[in-house]
């Protein structure tokens, strides 16, 4: 009797049996952890570095240069990959070897984040956890919307990617940073170009950002407050003169995983410190 029950359970189970999952893409890896499915992971790519535990998994290298043999070595029964993963030859070999290679879009938007969570949950057969996470995220986004609705005059934010040798590399349109700035209820100070660009000093002065946003990391990428005020162009901006410089963790800010809503709320609070006091 018990045996028969076990047998039926086993027969019903195989669809959910994938327990050797490789995840390619930092945002997707974070989602797998948020769904509590990390025990099924056997590999990741270099872009996956949060939560820190993910670093203990074997690293498959850069997600656009995956080695087919490296993947097969991990003997995966499911590969969850961002749509940027490749090369195509590797994907074709995975198909030849009968390893499901699922590609999920990594677009930087609220809807895409929710959709990603649902897709990952579905492929991992963890729909319950997925629905719960989506619920939480929706609530976070709703709270964010309430906060951003209070913004009457959006502030102009400049995202500085790097400042090597005093040359400022900033985010334009169609970047993750730009999407986050908008989510937080502000506007990107540079929307006349797409992607990241090295800016001339004049362009920076002309854009006159109210806030400077950066990633908080070591090395020459990060600028100290003194370096910002001392910079010939940045020093002239309202942001530098009013000390409006925000530093946030890079993966947190730009990961577009399950912490995105939280990150956007944090960013909103940092950009509009006065508003959030009323909103709670």
């Amino acid at each position: 009797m018990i045996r028969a029950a076990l047998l039926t359970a086993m027969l019903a189970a195989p669809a959910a049996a994938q327990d050797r999952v490789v995840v390619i893409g930092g945002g997707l890896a974070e989602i797998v952890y948020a769904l509590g499915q990390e025990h099924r992971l056997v590999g990741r790519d270099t872009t996956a570095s949060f939560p820190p535990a993910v670093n203990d998994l074997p690293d498959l290298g850069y997600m656009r240069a995956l080695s087919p043999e490296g993947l097969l070595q991990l003997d995966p029964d499911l590969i969850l990959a961002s749509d940027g993963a490749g090369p195509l030859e590797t994907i074709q070999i995975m198909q030849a070897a009968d390893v499901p290679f699922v590609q999920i879009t990594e677009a930087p938007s609220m809807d895409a984040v929710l959709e990603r969570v649902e897709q990952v949950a579905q492929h991992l057969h963890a729909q319950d956890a997925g629905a719960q996470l989506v619920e939480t995220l929706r609530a976070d986004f709703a709270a964010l919307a309430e906060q951003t609705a209070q913004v009457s005059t959006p502030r102009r934010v400049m995202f500085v990617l790097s400042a090597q040798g005093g040359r400022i590399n900033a985010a334009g349109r169609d970047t993750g940073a730009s999407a986050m700035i908008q989510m937080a209820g502000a506007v990107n100070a540079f929307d006349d170009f797409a992607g990241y660009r090295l800016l001339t000093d004049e362009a920076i002065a002309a854009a006159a950002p109210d806030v400077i946003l950066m990633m908080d990391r070591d090395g020459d990428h990060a600028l100290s407050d003194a370096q910002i005020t001392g910079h010939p162009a940045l020093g002239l901006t309202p942001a530098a003169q009013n000390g409006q410089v925000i530093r946030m963790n890079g993966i947190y800010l730009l990961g577009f995983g399950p912490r995105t809503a939280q990150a956007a709320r944090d960013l909103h609070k940092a950009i509009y410190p006065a508003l959030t006091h009323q909103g709670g």
Partner: protein
Amino acid sequence: MVALPFNSRRPRRPPAMAAAGDRALRARATITALVVFVLAASILSLGVGAAGVSLPDVLWQLASGEALGLRDRVVLFDIRLPRLLTGLLVGASLAVSGAVMQGLFRNPLADPGIVGVGAGAGLGAVLAIVLGAMLPPAVLAVAGMHLVPLAAFLGGWASTLVLYRVSTRRGRTSVATMLLAGIALGALAGALTGILVYIADDQQLRDLTFWGLGSLAGASWAKLAAAAPIMVLALIAAPVLARALNGLALGEAAASHMGISVQRMKNLAILTVAGATGAAVAVSGGIGFIGIVVPHLLRLAMGPDHRYLLPAAALLGAGLLLLADMIARLVIAPAELPIGIVTAVLGGPVFLWILLRRRGIVDM
């Protein structure tokens, strides 16, 4: 690897005459050793890899009539075998192209980069990576994933054609003009590449970097089917050049007095190198040092006679590239190193060591 007998301070003699006697014997021995080396490297290359499919096990399974598992079959026949063949052909093509170029230009620094193939192919690849998405969908549907290799090949050919036109007057090609024009064209291609790098987005930049470092990881039967015929043809054509290159070592005038049709030989050499390098770069990206280290190593080991040098270069180039590829795919498994890093890291010091031991290498 091959031992390098450094015969001390032998007076330099015209290679065509020096070929006789002990040198020919040594050359044959070297080539025999190289054949064994390439065979061993090939077997090893089929047998090792991240996936832990071992060749003896698979052979035993086949011999005992058992069917191979799907994964073993894919690893052996869809990953390692096309990769092995690509490595053999690319290594041989690069080394032979280097040897031919050095002979043609009578310049120890010459390599396929100098006829503009390298720069042109690089520009083609960069164009395809950065601007490929702007092509009409119909073109993209046809070219598909082969757009970058295709563009690299066409870029290599186009730049060779331009160089050839620039340096050929009244049916005579001046190799000196070609060398200089190659440098100019290289700078121009570099500048155009720079513009494209500037407008590329982050992902394209990463793609560019990886392409420039070269890899055999993208080897597939489809790519091999497209590129192998060109490389094989070029490798077959190369030995035809051997006698003429030997004659050319004495100077163009002497060569034509020896009854060598110098212009025909130049045409064939340029065609061979453009084809072999264009196809090699197209399937594997930028792989440095094979074209320059291999011929020099061999000249030291067996003398400059192209009749032996060209086949030996093909063998050593193929074997070394296979070894480099094994290192590339094993050291950081399950990830993979770009093979250009391996060839340069190993090739650079070896080359410096040779230069230290024997400065005479540059007056070949």
